[in-house]
């Protein structure tokens, strides 16, 4: 649908936060879902760009947090308040916080934090019984984002940067392991991990979850044409548990959030 850009600002060099608005835009939107954005009116660039919901600010408005990483996102970064933007969504299967979940570990790397704030908002609102713990990692100080927002929500947040330019130096997966080792003695039953970020990080998060048998849900990316399950362009190979075979699943429709045990890393 045609939306109006309410704001579009640089948060740190190369990263932007945009809010768009349209009647009913976010009514059925949930954490982990995404929109397909048409960034130009001509035929180049031709395809829509997928962006995760970063924050739902009202039934009629929501925010994206995005990295300028190519032609489409750089066109996007030039939009100003009042501009029109054609946004298709909400799409896909997002993060589900099952009833059995008692404790949520939320792990984000770099821009992967984008959908996770929406998830913590959701938990704060829908699952006050859960006290999530957030783990944020990034290359340098500019790539660990949303710290203030997590603080505002009063969430315990662990931070690591690879270059140590700010906060503890190291990989966020180490801090995740430390945390689990520290608290798992009373058992990890009802624990769940929700993660989004670069593939290497997601892979080791999945491994850690597996070792400590904690359920782990991870948001994946793939190049997309349609975003609605029609083109079969966005598939990734998953493990088909019953038949113990590999099956292709659509990131746009079956995902983008998958049970990390099914992902063939």
């Amino acid at each position, binding site marked *: 649908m045609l939306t109006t850009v309410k704001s579009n600002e640089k948060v740190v060099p190369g990263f932007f936060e945009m809010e768009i608005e349209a009647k009913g835009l976010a009514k059925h939107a949930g954490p982990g879902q995404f929109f397909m954005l048409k960034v130009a009116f001509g*035929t180049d660039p031709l395809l829509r760009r997928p962006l995760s919901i970063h924050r739902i600010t009202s039934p009629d408005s929501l925010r994206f947090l995005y990295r300028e990483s190519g032609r489409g996102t750089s066109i996007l970064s030039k939009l100003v308040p009042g501009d029109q933007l054609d946004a298709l969504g909400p799409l896909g299967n997002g993060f589900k916080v099952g009833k059995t979940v008692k404790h949520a570990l939320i792990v984000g790397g770099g821009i992967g934090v984008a959908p996770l704030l929406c998830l913590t908002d959701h938990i704060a609102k829908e699952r006050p019984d859960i006290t999530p713990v957030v783990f944020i990692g990034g290359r340098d100080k500019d790539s660990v984002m949303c710290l203030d927002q997590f603080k505002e929500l009063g969430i315990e947040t662990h931070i690591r940067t690879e270059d140590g330019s700010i906060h503890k130096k190291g990989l966020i997966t180490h801090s995740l392991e430390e945390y689990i080792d520290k608290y798992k003695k009373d058992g990890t039953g009802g624990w769940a991990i929700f993660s989004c970020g670069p593939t290497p990080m997601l892979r080791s998060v999945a491994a850690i979850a597996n070792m400590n048998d904690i359920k782990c849900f991870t948001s994946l990316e793939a190049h997309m044409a*349609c975003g609605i399950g029609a083109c*079969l*362009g966005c598939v990734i*190979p998953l493990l088909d548990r019953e038949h113990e075979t590999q099956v292709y699943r659509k990131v746009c429709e079956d995902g983008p959030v998958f049970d990390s045990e099914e992902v063939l890393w």
Partner: protein
Amino acid sequence: MVKKDHTPSTEVSLGPLKLKNPVVTASGTFGYGAEYAKFYDLSRLGGITVKGLSMKPIPGNPPPRICETPSGMLNAIGLQNVGVDEFINKKLPFLAQYDIKVIANIFGNTVEEYEAVAARLDRADGVHALEVNISCPNVKKGGMAFGVDPDSTYEVLKAVRQVTGKPVIAKLSPNVTSVVPFAEKAAEAGVDALSLINTLLGMAIDIRTRKPKLANITGGLSGPAIRPVAIRIIWQVHRAVGLPIIGMGGIMDASDAVEFMLAGATAVAVGTANFVNPTAAADIADGIKNYLGENKIEDINQIIGQVQA
């Protein structure tokens, strides 16, 4: 002169296959219809062509399967599909509720496979025509192999023709020196119509990784980028061969559709545009109606092949 209130006639005939309006969807770009039924009433279309079907399910190519190119895209889906039986049992019933023609796109690796899928679909109610894809650039054997040799083109089409009484549409390969001889072979084999064009064989390389952007290395180029090639081929074939043509290749709006019909297409198929705008095909069907009204054209058949060339 037409009275203001008079609504122009949009019905077209692909041989025995009648469409209430000339807009269908292009195979592989519309799933099995259900994906788009969420966005509009499919009855606004003349028909839909479903994703290519084979006898057995096919997993398709490994990812990445698509990439964007200037005003176009490359795809190498590898004809992933649920197989003809699952299609008939699980997908086809859903489409019965709509007032549209369902065109089943088929392919195989051997003449026998084509024949078998066609025979199976011939018995399926709710399938109104078969589109024989002999031009897929994304499968090693079969597909395009048949499409670039006139004799195998004839052989496959003849075999399909013999096992079905339903309208048969031949989807020919544009990746040949001239499509005309293939169109002639198709006519000889007794098909009712032609679909032009399938994707152009293309390739793109990521200069950072030095890898092809598609796991399949090469893929099919679609979208507005190929429109001038499609218009040229349709014009050439329309002049040379009597068969009605479903024109496709980069149609994004109603003006593009009209351009294809002026070039010689009797109907048009909307493909890549569905990805950019989910309601594209329906919008184009409406847009054509408006075009006829504004230009006081009583019957859409009056514009087919009317380019002054």
